[in-house]
């Protein structure tokens, strides 16, 4: 079957970007928003069709196992028969799943932004960037090889940078965009090194080859090792550093809270639903390699980093007052879930439950977290503040936002039958059946904590007591409420998607069993969290102040995000700048520049001296010509004798 139409999934967004970007002063509001929404809408429809086609028509081979299908592939730069950089479109369960996630959220965010960005300067520029981001993200998920994914990975970083710094005359936004870019770039350095190692030792970039059993066993046979682990394992750890940077895993998470300086739709699209899960996607993409190399050492790293991050972020989320930052830390915590689920997963059949659970959670989380962010945006739009202190009692004024936000909060807390319940439950089961009890404990505790801080957020916004509003808040326009309703519907139903027969580690469907013990325990702790939050925050009272005083130092640490930013500042400013950069700068100024200036001046001097040869006289030229011939002839005469 000819799948070349899938190229449109990438072509339409980039064309939209070019059209909007090149005419940004000519296309006026709201037309750019309409163009963007329609274009991404078409992209979404084509993507859905492709995903449908893959899952139900062409994806399975004769044995009912999902295959990798190269919808398109062309050699871009050729090195050897096995090592070449391709550009193409790869369809497999996870990319087909992402074909549902990315365009859906992007489409909703585009529609939402028509209302949200109303009367903001640079309206068209905003939609141009959104299209660029959509293009990059889709390229990332459809990439056929490591090099292509790296290119799109960086483009995603660039569009994220542009969108965080969208309010470029606001210094904090500019600082945040720089921070996000630098931190993720730093992590990408690890990614690039990993790619270079893989390509050097494995002689291929191609995902199909990289995840084949033949390649893995060949790499296992190869003796090249460093500190007891094979080079490929080291490469995988380096690649994971790149993934950890994009997915805001500890200790590379510091950019994510600051990234909330961007417009809220951007936070919903990039920093909640799509770009930040790129790291999870990357690990899932190379999952067979992670699982089989050296018995899964690299995968253990993924599991522990994920487990630590999820707990770390949940603790910080307790004490934040900026509603977007609460959501940011919650995102970090949930991505930690996905990472640890991958980390504990096996490969064959039901053993691969963790993989399935992680992808499932990625899917459902994208829906309800985008919904939470868009809801937060709607609230910020109404009260013109990010801080809980300025909110309260909003349920009366914004009924639609209230209901959708509540649905999302219940979903992320894991209350049945909402989406988050199913996926979170699978993660708990996965960590339990693989006997990772410590990880299970962390996951379980975080489930309760999540319920608590999400409902703290919910009650502080919609209940608590009403502050004195300057003007009465009112419900957002239709362009904002419709995306909220669509995403709320997705949150309600997406838990029933049979992921275990669609997206699995080895492509084979398997049966999941209900673990009533886990279900009861997890719903129990979630209810407990919600219950506590209800007691403390439903009406204004002094309970929370007393708790704060009781925890004292610990609260302060949490409030200040465990001083991670300060640690980074100390390391970069005090140690690296003074200890490393200064001596290098001296060397650069005196030795390198000196040599370069010398070369430059020398070149100019020679250039000045030879100028005289070009006299403009024909007879001179003829003489040079003939003497050139004679000289070469004599030189050869001499050399050959």
């Amino acid at each position, binding site marked *: 079957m000819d799948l070349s139409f899938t190229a449109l999934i990438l072509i339409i967004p980039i064309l939209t970007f070019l059209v909007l970007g090149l005419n940004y002063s000519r296309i006026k509001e709201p037309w750019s928003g309409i163009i963007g929404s329609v274009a991404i809408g078409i992209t979404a429809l084509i993507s859905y069709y492709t995903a449908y086609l893959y899952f139900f028509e062409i994806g399975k081979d004769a044995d009912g196992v999902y295959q990798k299908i190269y919808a398109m592939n*062309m*050699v*871009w*730069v*050729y090195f050897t028969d096995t090592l070449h950089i391709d550009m193409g479109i790869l369809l497999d369960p996870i990319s087909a799943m992402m074909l549902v996630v990315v365009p859906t959220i992007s489409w909703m965010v585009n529609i939402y932004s028509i209302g949200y960005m109303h009367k903001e300067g640079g309206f068209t520029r905003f939609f141009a960037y959104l299209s660029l981001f959509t293009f990059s993200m889709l390229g990332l998920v459809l990439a056929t090889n490591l090099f292509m994914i790296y290119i799109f990975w960086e483009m995603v970083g660039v569009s994220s940078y542009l969108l965080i710094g969208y309010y470029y005359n606001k210094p904090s936004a500019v600082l945040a965009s720089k921070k996000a870019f630098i931190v993720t770039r730093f992590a990408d350095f690890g990614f690039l090194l990993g790619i270079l190692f893989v390509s050097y030792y494995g002689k291929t970039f191609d995902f199909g080859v990289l995840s084949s059993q033949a390649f893995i066993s060949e790499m296992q046979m190869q003796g090249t090792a460093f500190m007891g682990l094979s080079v490929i394992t080291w490469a995988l750890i380096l690649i994971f550093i790149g993934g950890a940077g994009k997915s805001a895993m500890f200790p590379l998470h510091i950019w994510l809270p600051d990234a909330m300086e961007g417009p809220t739709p951007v936070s919903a699209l990039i920093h909640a639903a799509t770009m930040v899960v790129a790291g999870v996607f990357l690990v899932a993409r190379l999952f067979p390699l992670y699982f089989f190399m050296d018995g899964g050492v690299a995968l253990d790293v993924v599991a522990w980093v994920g487990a630590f991050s999820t707990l770390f972020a949940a603790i910080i989320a307790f004490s934040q007052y900026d509603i977007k930052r609460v959501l940011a830390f919650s995102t970090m915590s949930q991505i930690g879930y996905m990472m640890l689920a991958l980390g504990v997963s096996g490969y064959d059949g039901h053993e691969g439950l963790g993989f399935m659970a992680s992808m499932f959670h990625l899917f459902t989380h994208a829906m309800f977290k985008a919904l939470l962010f868009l809801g937060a945006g709607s609230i910020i739009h109404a009260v013109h503040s990010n801080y809980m202190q300025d909110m309260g009692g909003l349920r009366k004024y914004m009924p639609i936002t209230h209901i959708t936000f509540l649905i999302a909060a219940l979903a992320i807390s894991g209350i049945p039958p909402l989406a988050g319940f199913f996926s979170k439950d699978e993660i708990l089961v996965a960590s339990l059946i693989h006997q990772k009890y410590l990880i299970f404990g962390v996951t379980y505790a975080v489930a309760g904590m999540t319920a608590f801080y999400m409902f703290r957020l919910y009650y502080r916004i919609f209940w608590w007591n009403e502050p004195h509003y300057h003007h009465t808040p009112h419900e957002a326009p239709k362009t904002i409420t419709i995306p909220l309703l669509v995403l709320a519907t997705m949150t309600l139903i997406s838990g029933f998607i049979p992921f275990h027969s669609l997206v699995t580690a080895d492509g084979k469907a398997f049966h999941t069993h209900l673990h009533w013990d886990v279900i009861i325990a997890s719903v129990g702790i979630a209810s407990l969290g919600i219950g506590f939050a209800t007691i403390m925050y439903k009406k204004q009272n002094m309970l929370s102040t007393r708790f704060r005083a009781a925890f004292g130092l610990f609260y302060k640490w949490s409030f200040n995000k465990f001083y991670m930013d300060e640690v980074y500042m100390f390391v970069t400013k005090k140690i690296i700048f003074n200890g490393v950069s200064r001596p290098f700068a001296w060397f650069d100024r005196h030795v390198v520049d000196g040599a370069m200036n010398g070369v430059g001046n020398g*070149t*100019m001097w*020679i*250039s*000045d001296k*030879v*100028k005289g*040869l*070009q006299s*403009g006289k*024909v007879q*001179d*030229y*003829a003489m*040079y*010509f*003939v*003497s*050139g*011939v004679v000289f*070469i*002839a004599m030189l*050869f*005469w001499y*050399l*050959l004798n």
Partner: protein
Amino acid sequence: MNWNTFFLMRHEIVLTLIILLLLLIDVFVDDKKKLNPIAIIAFAVYTLLGFLPLESGSLFGGMFVNSPLINVLKNAMNIGVLMITLSAVSWVNAKMLPLKKVGEFYILLFSSYLGMLFLVSSGHFLMLYLGMELATLPVAALAAYDIFSRKSSEAGIKLILNAALSSGILLFGASIIYMTTGSLYFSSIANNVSNSYLMILGLIMLFAGFGFKISLVPFHFWTADVYEGAPTPVSNYLSVISKGGAIFILMILAFVVFNQLNYLWLPLFYGISIVTMFLGNFFALRQKNLQRFMAFSSVAQAGFILMGMLSFDQMAVTSVVYFIAIYIVSNIGAFGVIQAVGIASGKWEMDDYNGFYRTNPKMALVLMLALFSLAGIPPLAGFFGKFFLYTSAASQGYYWIVFLGILNATIALYYYLLVIRSAFLRTSENPIPYFKSDWYMRISMILVAIALIMLGLYSPFYSYINSLSIL
């Protein structure tokens, strides 16, 4: 003559017909301005015709050869000439229309190009010589075409005198080779080469003749004076088409005909390549006049191409043909802008370009793309062109010359950036005023911009050439 032979020679036959047609029309048309679209449309049709598929074959007992690879080169040159004629219209209308000398321009240009076509298809030294003469003589007339400009006349004289000298030496070299091998056919020379001193002398003289066409050091001195004096479209033609064709046939001679003497010409290419790169760049650094600047830049580029030939295998052929195609586009872009500015405002100096971006942003962008491509900045086409030349040389272990090449690319980047700095970063009291170029020029520049971006990103072009590059 049957259809097959027509097909083999279709470029040459159709172009000859076009030239004859133009001669006829020129007599009957009073409004000479109409000749522009007629010539260009005829040439465009001819260009399209060149893309028909082709089988390898030879005619006249091997004097004339054609192959898919040669066809690719001819097509690239066709497109180049088409772009040059498109961009030349504004000059022709400005300078030549009042004198009613429109038709001759196209007739001379196409005649010279016909010579280039015969040159790249030659399989015999006589054909080679005839092609080269036919390519050179009309260009000398074209160089002196601007009859009111003393510089133009000077350029014509310098070109014809130098060309006479070089073709004399080339002919002498060919005679010596005939003396030692007893044949003028490339195929039989290849079987009879010997390493006698006479043979070597012949080879060097032959090389000098080509060195003139390609402007390799020390046979390059005419380049700057002629490029500066000649009308810009003519300099443009000389710098790309004339050079590209000559390089190709030099490569055929070296790789096929004198393959067994590679221990001789390899060090020759090696040395001349280094000298040419360095000297071209050293001269280019000092130039303030943009036409002279482009002249020396094109000298330096020739050195790069020679470097790519060192591995003399399939990759060398591919990378050289690929580079020629890209170089044609890049240089035409740069020359096109320089010419448009020169005609609109009469300014040819680098400092005149201060503030160019403010007044003519689109032209400035094309200039930037073209110069960045010449400098080899990714992801433009020029980067990949240079990249494959380096790879080709490095694949046979010529690391030193690759290192020197990269050093030279850095020097070159410096002087290309000088122009871009003038156009984009500097401001001026009286910048080049805004001007509207005609549609011919615009089409040509849009084609250039698209080609510069697409040739870099669309790699099947390289693979396609590679699949044909079996000599």
